[in-house]
């Protein structure tokens, strides 16, 4: 009887000890879990901040990129529109120029062009003058007047006509030097400056 109760006491004691041990283990495991959770929360928070920050940066870059590209595309479209308008303006101007070939001022211009061209090719009077078919008669008249006044001597108007708006092209007698003083070449020379003026007008800049 007494040995049984001693055994029971011992069993009870072992059970108590085990229980206490298990409770302590559970407590420490619980505590450890809480600690882990806490530190994970910190890490998670840091990771979340990192991801959000990276995404924010990426979004900012993307935004900048999209806005930048859109602005550039709009600017390029504006450039093309202006260029079309500038080209139209030039076409109109060329038509007007072609129509003004009969005016007196054009004769004066031709005279100036011939003198300027002869001077450009070194003042040599032995030159061949080329022009378009419509101007041929007027050019011959101007050359004849210049010859009469002694300003030009051995100039000859070519029978080979050139396809230009107006003006003249002068060649040295041996054909090695050419001075292009046609209206077309003058327009080409001044085009960059005129383009700027037209573009400013289109943009409303004074």
């Amino acid at each position: 009887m007494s040995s049984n109760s001693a055994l029971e006491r011992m069993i009870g004691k072992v059970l108590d000890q085990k229980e206490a041990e298990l409770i302590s283990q559970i407590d420490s495991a619980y505590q450890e879990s809480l600690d882990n959770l806490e530190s994970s929360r910190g890490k998670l928070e840091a990771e979340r901040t990192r991801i959000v920050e990276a995404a924010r940066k990426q979004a900012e870059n993307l935004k900048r990129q999209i806005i930048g590209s859109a602005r550039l595309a709009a600017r390029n479209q504006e450039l093309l529109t202006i260029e079309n308008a500038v080209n139209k303006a030039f076409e109109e101007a060329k038509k007007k120029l072609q129509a003004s070939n009969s005016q007196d001022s054009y004769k004066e211009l031709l005279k100036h062009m011939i003198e300027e061209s002869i001077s450009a090719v070194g003042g040599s009077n032995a030159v061949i003058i080329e022009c378009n078919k419509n101007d041929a008669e007027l050019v011959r008249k101007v050359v004849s007047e210049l010859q009469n006044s002694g300003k030009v001597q051995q100039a000859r108007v070519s029978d080979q006509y050139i396809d230009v708006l107006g003006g003249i092209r002068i060649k040295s007698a041996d054909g090695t030097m050419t001075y292009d003083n046609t209206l077309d070449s003058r327009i080409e020379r001044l085009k960059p400056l005129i383009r700027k003026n037209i573009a400013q007008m289109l943009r409303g800049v004074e």
Partner: protein
Amino acid sequence: MTTTSYGIEYTKVAELKGPLMIIDGVTKVSFDELVEIETVDGEHRLGRVLEVGFGKAIVQVFEGTTGLTITGTKAKFTGKTMEMPVSQELLGRVFDGLGKPNDGLPDPIADRFVDVNGEPMNPERREYPTSFIQTGVSVIDGMLTLVRGQKLPIFSGSGMAHNILAAQIARQASVVGTKEDFAVVFAAIGVQYSEAQYFKRSLEESGALRRSVLFLNLADDPAIERIITPRVALTVAEYLAFDLGMHVLAILTDMTNYAEALREISAAREEVPGRKGYPGYLYTDLANNYERAGRIKGKNGSVTQVPILSMPADDITHPIPDLTGYITEGQIVLGRDLFRKGIYPPVNVLMSLSRLMKDGVGEGKTRSDHMEVGNQLYDAYSRAQEVRALSEIVGRAGLTGIDLKYLDVGDKFEQHFLKQAPDENRTLEETLTRAWDVLSGLPEGELTKIKEKHVRQYYKG
């Protein structure tokens, strides 16, 4: 009446020799005058007068003389030097090596036309560069700081990542803490088509094209065109900087191709060759380009130059890097060993130097510890390299404790500070934090180049 005098067209071509065309019977022609050439087929090319005398003119044809004939070729002397139309509209545009549009858009509407040869900067009016440009590349910002108005070349080797680095700098470069405008002028000289596309795409996709002007001279374009590419690029850079008040970073890659073109012309002119066949005036010619960087007193803008050159056979004593080094204010050298180790950007910091860094960093400009941290990193990495060499002989077991620490610092420097993704844009703060991460691997007592207060503030040991 406004004079429209525009030069005479000559047909008497006496000789075609390499990239040169000799024209006979010319009068009233000037040195450097622009020449418009028309081939028998009606194709137009450009050239410039190199020499005049005895009724002859030697013309350098930019697009080369292939296809030109003695008879039937016309050369019109325009009476002016080569000019580049400039305006703010150039930003966001792509041009070829001669400054002609390459993006399907019309010619820019010019504010004015500027001689591409530029005007020499009056030395008395030069202002000493002292303001920082952030590239977003740690090794440059932290240790080889670029300063507005500086000329800092990158010396690279064949096949190395200089073009990736160039594009990264072009995308990321900015002036921090100021609302002043910033622009990038990028001149690709003799690059492959794929590289040119990479530069263009890279700027487009990052949205940086809007503030950039690109000049693309391809490897299959005539070599002679390369003579003009840096000149047109720098002309635009000067206009943006000194007329519009912008801070401009001009990146010129690859200047070796430029020097090769110069050698080709020199050989065709039968000039007495200098070192490795380059003309004797290579130094002067390079200086003419490099010295177009700087700041001018009383003007807001600046031109900062980063010329990139690939050293033939990685030889830093080759005439091109050698002469460049005399003119520029430091150099960034890319190392083959680092490149082979897969480290990008493979900057060999021990051979690199930014001479103006000391004036562009520190309190009020970047951060008070910046210069000291840069110096300490140099010192630590240099020591790490020595220890690496020693460990090759005696093995790690033979090293002392402090040696082992330096060895680790060397590795961390390469992996944590130097190594960077090509699309990673680091702020200066981030760069310096990484620098302190590396330096904190050493005992405090080893940080002899840094003031105690900074060690107390930033050391993480």
